[in-house]
């Protein structure tokens, strides 16, 4: 009988002493964490994509709370909705930003370039970029080996087997910017999604002079400057034989696209052009 009493006593005593020690230790090494971090982290999408520049959603939440403001801190995936929720928690005013989308600025691929060499090395854009210009000969164009597909956490980018070029799924793309960082040739760019998803952009990043660029690719920008002249909003600039449309200035007037002699300027999600314009163009060609 006494054995049981002793053992119970010893256990109770040890437990008691340990509890007292642990209590003081816990007081001493207490980590004070702002409860708002948890609240914000709950609101974030939780995909840990890194699109905001932090390592993950919780890191962004910490960053926001530590900074105490929302300047430049924003979850590109959540967009305005999440920004408003976070602002509410912090008692701040949410900043509004235009939704962005990833745009692939190369239209070369298998269809518009002729393959001059066959690449049989590692199927990785980074490696191919170190070793060769490209199968079609363009030193700036898409290599089509799909590093962007590999990094996308939202399954929003796919390689089109017919053209060999990546295609962005408008529904799924959240503009986290991972593919932009991954692409060794800086072909993918985050551009304004636009009203009714309408966008105009130059689908080429080739900086060669017109002749060599056109030699390798039917749809290359040759830097002729026609689009620059026709633009009324000063949105188009030619630099290094390449036109670039500034999406902040572009008003989607559609004047530049028909001017492009190689069809390098793409219009997305616009209704087809009216008959009148087509007739005018045809007349212009005949004359």
């Amino acid at each position, binding site marked *: 009988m006494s054995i049981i009493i002793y053992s119970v006593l010893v256990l109770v005593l040890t437990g008691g002493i340990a509890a007292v020690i642990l209590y003081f230790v816990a007081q001493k090494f207490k980590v004070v964490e702002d409860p708002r971090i948890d609240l914000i982290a709950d609101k974030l999408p939780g995909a840990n994509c890194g699109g905001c520049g932090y390592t993950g959603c919780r890191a962004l939440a910490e960053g926001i709370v530590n900074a105490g403001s929302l300047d430049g801190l924003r979850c590109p995936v959540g967009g305005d909705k999440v920004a408003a929720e976070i602002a509410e928690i912090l008692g701040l005013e949410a900043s509004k930003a235009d939704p962005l989308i990833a745009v692939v600025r190369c239209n070369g691929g298998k269809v518009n370039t002729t393959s001059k060499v066959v690449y049989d090395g590692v199927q*990785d854009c980074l490696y191919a970029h*170190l070793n060769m210009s490209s199968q079609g000969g363009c030193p700036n164009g898409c290599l089509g080996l799909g590093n962007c597909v590999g990094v996308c956490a939202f399954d929003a980018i796919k390689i089109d087997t017919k053209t060999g070029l990546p295609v962005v799924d408008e529904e799924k793309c959240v503009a986290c910017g991972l593919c932009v960082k991954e692409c060794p040739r800086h072909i993918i760019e985050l551009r304004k999604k636009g009203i009714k998803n309408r966008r105009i952009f130059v689908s080429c990043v080739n900086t060669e002079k017109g002749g060599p660029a056109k030699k390798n690719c039917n749809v290359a920008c040759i830097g002729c400057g026609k689009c620059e002249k026709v633009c009324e909003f000063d949105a188009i600039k030619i630099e290094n034989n390449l036109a670039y449309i500034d999406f902040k200035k572009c008003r989607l007037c559609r004047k530049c696209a028909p001017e492009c002699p190689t069809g390098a300027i793409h219009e997305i999600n616009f209704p087809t052009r009216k008959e009148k314009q087509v007739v005018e163009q045809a007349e212009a060609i005949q004359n």
Partner: protein
Amino acid sequence: MKTFKKGGVHPQENKLTNDSTIEVFPLPKQAVVFVSQHLGAPSTLVVQKGDKVKAGQLIAKAEQFICANTHSPYSGTITKIDFATDFTGYKKQALYIDVDGDEWLEGIDTSTEIIREIKLDSNQIIDKIKEMGVVGLGGAAFPTHIKYMLPQGKKADYLIINAVECEPYLTSDYRLMKEKAEECLIGIEILKKALNVEKALVGVESNKPEAIKNLTNLAKNYKGIEIVPLKTKYPQGAEKQLIYALTKREVPSGKLPIEVGCVVNNIGTTQAVYYAVQKNMPLVQNILTLTGKNVKERKNLLVRVGTPIQSVIDYCGGLPQDTGKVISGGPMMGKAISDLSAPTVKTTSALLLMSEKESLRKEETNCLRCGKCITVCPMGLEPIKIAQLAENRLWEDTEKTYAMDCIECGSCLYTCPAGRPLLDLIRVSKNHIGDLRRQRAQK
């Protein structure tokens, strides 16, 4: 027989052009000469469109520390200064020259007479090498004069000459040692004087007995030049491996050979040094092996820099029908050429035409964990581990596994029974580590 410490492979030697004497390649009508043909900062152009140039005239000047001069290999008119594709397909600044003869600049001795007496002193020699745009002809094109400007507090004990030529197929150095050994030896004497050392070690692989015999006979007339036969094993000619084989000294990780008192140069470079110092001739030509199992006329050619690769191939009977790859350099470390209209550069030592069957990669399967890549790595690295980390894009971890020490010899890739692209992945990680280091240096 002396050799390096660990690893190495022995691929089939295939030295098919051992018996063909060096032929002088006729001058092309039009040539494309790249402005910068070396490792380091780009050189600055000193000629203009429409200028008449003579062979040996300076066309681009070195203005920074790691940089080399470029000279015109031809006499003719510069018709265009534009971007031209190099053999990787990328564009580089180049001069297009219409060749109208072979008129050399005054003061350049083009005779075959051998000049033995070295008149210049150490500093003058280094200046002369710099002026004549001599770069390492082993493959990296590192400006030679920089190797001889020793950092403060460092002293060289040995001059090491790399005459190993361990790459299969290549025979340009072998022919050089048979036909122009005397010039090379004088070149070594000059470099010895520039470096102020007593001893020069020339490492030659044992599969070139005639070259060893020839050099040993001639070296008797020169003091302090020792010809050392080395075991036939790849990569015997890698800088660090060669230093170990000859001196039993090990270059520490991330350091240069001067750390262990050695300066290493290729045998081809010694001949270029001889021409530069004794004959005032800049580096404008090199010996090129055109080879391959199906090539009709395999040749060793003396080619001027800037000759279109296509014309060299045409000269040797044209491209065989089943050619899969044209490789600039040897089969182990060379790079596949993606544009045959590209011109040769100072370091184009070989053009290897491989049939389609030979050139294709093995089908890639899963890693067997056999550890063969680790056994053959001459640097004692673990290629499999670096490759795994690289596949997962953990670039910082690849740095911790010493990916930067990889000499890119390709032994691991050659050995791998699963056909894994080990070297390719290591190269990618090296590139990324370089980026990381640059970022750190900026901070």
